């Protein structure tokens, strides 16, 4: 009798299938897959301003200062402690000892100075981008670059191997929060020098001290990271972290339901019902750290009039709109600041806008327009966490305004053009936009839209407000700050150029076996504390 032999090819098939399935199983048990809403721009800290990149970078890099889980309160990161001098014009950071970058090189004061110099100094050899070498976010968060008048930083000095001092051009109490922002991950100087201009692109190896180290980046598709077993903080609970890029929110939900991703964020509020109906899924509500608002332009002849602006803010039923379009995942308030920063609100301003169409109509008549007026309202063509579906929200606001006699022409245009046109003369009459915070300080919100460097979209500049913003930035301690920001709150509320509509809670979701996820309000967080419990 002849013995039966597998043909080699067939044998290969069986063997490969067997190996693949067993390897698949053991790898899966320790692989965590996150569905990100797009692809990072770069994995070079010092090259990015977008949330998608920050999220990925946060797994690879640490910042000097971290934030307590689920809050915006600072805790030690790569710096174990920090202290200001008496007038807060200089901050000294004591660095963590014994920390190594993923490439084995030591983390120390030289590494911090190296990174911060390249962020801040446009002439630095290792600064980002081939041509100009300026890192926009430094200009925006810290007033400018080295050699510029507005720059908050005067110098960054190594005191000793584990101590670094930031000398400032004025007083600032927010500096620790700023250096903790997800943008400013500390990279290995050796790795940055080695890859040069290529550093951070898919063909390089980004090196930080973070909980995960870089394995591969398949552009347009996924980034694979592995656990850093030497991590100084909480060691990752999984072996591998895969971050997939899935742009379409409905597709992210499909992937989650199909079990091909373990957790995801930035779902549409409509998905809440779907997620709660599925027993294998759990909704994760991120703390709100944003504001979606309506901006009114002072260049418009009607909107110049305080009473018209007031009438508009009274005419829009914000609470009803938030209930209708955010599925309970948002709050409306009269403050530009999200609820976590509520301590900086004034007690003299009501918590919510008074919705009173009759009074609004009277106010409009008092302003001299008993027969009504006509205005353009521009809505965003894209979805953002603060305005997930701008068009129907704009329609609802238009309906409320037409009830008091304001005829609204709804308009929109391509996002790139929208962002451009809002700052060009004469700008938009009324338009929707928003802001998500970078770090836990009221300054980050107010300065962005009311400060001296803010956009020219509403043609409103107030020296009084600017002076208060300077004071707020310098004030040390929450009580001192609260006093100043309460005044800012009152002024901006009365002026009514920017009407806060919502502080939304972006919807995230996970498979139920994903445990230990405390989402950060800041939008960037390390996934080292997340584990897979039970069967995947």
């Amino acid at each position, binding site marked *: 009798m002849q013995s039966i032999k597998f043909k080699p090819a067939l044998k290969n098939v069986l063997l490969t299938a067997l190996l693949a399935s067993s390897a698949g199983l053991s790898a899966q048990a320790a692989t965590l897959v996150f569905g990100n809403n797009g692809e990072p721009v770069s994995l070079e800290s010092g090259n990015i301003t977008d949330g998608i990149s920050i999220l990925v970078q946060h797994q690879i890099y640490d910042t000097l200062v971290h934030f307590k889980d689920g809050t915006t309160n600072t805790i030690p990161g790569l710096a174990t402690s920090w202290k200001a001098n008496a007038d807060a014009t200089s901050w000294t950071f004591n660095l963590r000892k014994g920390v190594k970058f993923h490439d084995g090189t030591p983390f120390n004061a030289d590494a911090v100075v190296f990174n911060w110099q390249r962020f801040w100094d446009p002439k630095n050899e290792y600064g980002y981008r081939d041509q100009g070498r300026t890192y926009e*976010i430094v200009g925006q968060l810290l007033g400018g670059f080295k050699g510029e008048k507005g720059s908050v930083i005067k110098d960054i000095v190594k005191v000793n191997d584990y101590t670094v001092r930031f000398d400032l051009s004025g007083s600032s109490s927010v500096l620790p929060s700023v250096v903790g922002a997800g943008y400013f991950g500390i990279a290995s100087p050796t790795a940055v020098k080695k890859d040069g201009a290529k550093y951070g692109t898919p063909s390089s190896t980004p090196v930080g001290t973070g909980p995960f180290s870089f394995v591969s980046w398949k552009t*347009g598709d*996924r980034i694979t990271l592995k656990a850093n077993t030497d991590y100084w903080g909480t060691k990752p609970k999984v072996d591998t972290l895969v971050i997939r890029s899935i742009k379409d929110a409905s597709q992210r939900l499909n992937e989650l339901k199909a079990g091909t991703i373990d957790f995801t964020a930035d779902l549409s509020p409509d998905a809440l019902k779907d997620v709660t109906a599925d027993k294998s899924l759990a909704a994760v509500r991120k703390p709100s750290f944003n504001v979606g608002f309506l901006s009114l332009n002072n260049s418009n002849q009607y909107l110049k009039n305080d009473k018209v602006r007031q009438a508009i803010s009274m005419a829009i039923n914000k609470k009803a709109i938030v209930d209708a379009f955010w599925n309970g995942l948002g709050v409306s308030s009269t403050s530009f600041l999200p609820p976590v920063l509520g301590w900086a609100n004034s007690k003299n301003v009501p918590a919510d806008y008074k919705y009173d169409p009759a009074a609004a109509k009277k106010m409009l008549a008092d302003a001299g327009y008993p027969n009504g007026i006509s205005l353009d309202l521009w809505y965003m063509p894209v979805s953002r966490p603060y305005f997930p579906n701008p068009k129907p929200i704009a329609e609802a606001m238009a309906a409320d305004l037409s009830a008091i006699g304001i005829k609204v022409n709804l308009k929109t245009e391509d996002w790139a053009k929208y962002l451009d046109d809002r700052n060009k003369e004469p700008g938009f009459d009324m338009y929707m936009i928003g*802001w998500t915070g970078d770090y836990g300080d009221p300054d980050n919100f107010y300065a962005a839209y009311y400060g001296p460097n803010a956009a020219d979209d509403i043609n409103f500049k107030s020296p009084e407000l600017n002076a208060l913003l300077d004071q707020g930035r310098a004030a040390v301690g929450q009580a001192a700050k609260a006093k100043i920001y309460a005044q800012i709150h009152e002024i901006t509320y009365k002026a009514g150029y920017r009407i806060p509509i919502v502080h939304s809670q972006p919807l995230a979701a996970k498979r139920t076996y994903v445990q230990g996820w405390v989402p950060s309000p800041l939008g960037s967080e390390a996934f080292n504390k997340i584990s897979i419990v039970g069967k995947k």
Partner: protein
Amino acid sequence: MAAYVLRRLLRTLLVIIGISVVVFAFVRSIPGDPAVAMLGERATPEAAARLREQLGLNQPWFINYKDPAHLFDAQYPKYVGALLHGDLGSGIKSQIPVVNELKTRFPATVELAIGAIIFALLIGLPAGIIAALRRNTVWDNLATAVSLVGVSMPVFWLGLLLSWFFAVVLGWLPPSSRLSVGYSIQPITGLDVLDGLLRGQFAAAWNAFIHLILPSVALGTIPMAITARITRNSLLEVLGQDYVRTARAKGLPPRSVTLKHALRNALLPVVTVVGLQVGALLGGAVLTETIFSWPGLGSWLYDAISLRDYPVIQGGVIFAALVVSVVNLLVDLSYAFLDPRIQYA
């Protein structure tokens, strides 16, 4: 024949030069500034101006008429100069050389396009043949109805629907992407299914294949519907011709008459249409790839357009034009094989 091919290639070169000028002028005249688009909500005029300067976007486009000594110190001459060295520049946002990205993105799109064409022919051809042979029956009406629905269904809607039904409800196929987590295939051609087979990674090849099905169906639906219509009409026309009647009169079996005599001649317009569909497939890939997280040319261009990433748009469009030109040439050459009467001089 050789002269014909050479002439066509020269014409292709002219077309590419023309397209480079047009796309260069076109992307720069779309309102919306790359610097502002990239900064998003954070775009203050100062920050945008600074970024614009960094990116060299404040220089003139075609000629630097303000400074005659540096007449060609403008964006286009620099671009063409680099292009002649095979350098398409780097993405404004990613800083990745456009050529590098093309190398990984293009095979992904080719794989998807092949999948779509196979689906289109697999369903479209038989549907068209059945409709023609069973004219004015239920089968004919069914084929017509299916092709009508196929043409009028928006790709993104169809894509999401397919994903939801086959991945979420039935759990048969993966919802998106090219490979499951845990698999990887070292590229040879860049076509995952093929590379998996070539490397003997059969489980990975199978995984790549099942990932290919849904996007191929989404992308292939319109060509499928068109193929079915054209096949039906073309076959009906041929079946009415004298030589078919002669073949029947000779007593040849009906199957042989239809398949050997009629179908071969009826296929000529089908080939033309399938060839023309290549351009449409590249266009359709923009939405299909975006929906299915397929890392190809389409999703890459989609992002680039919304960000006004000029070098990526230029490189992608010029390359796509090249591909369409070459495919058209191949289609024209294939006529000679299908129809011996056609000769090239």
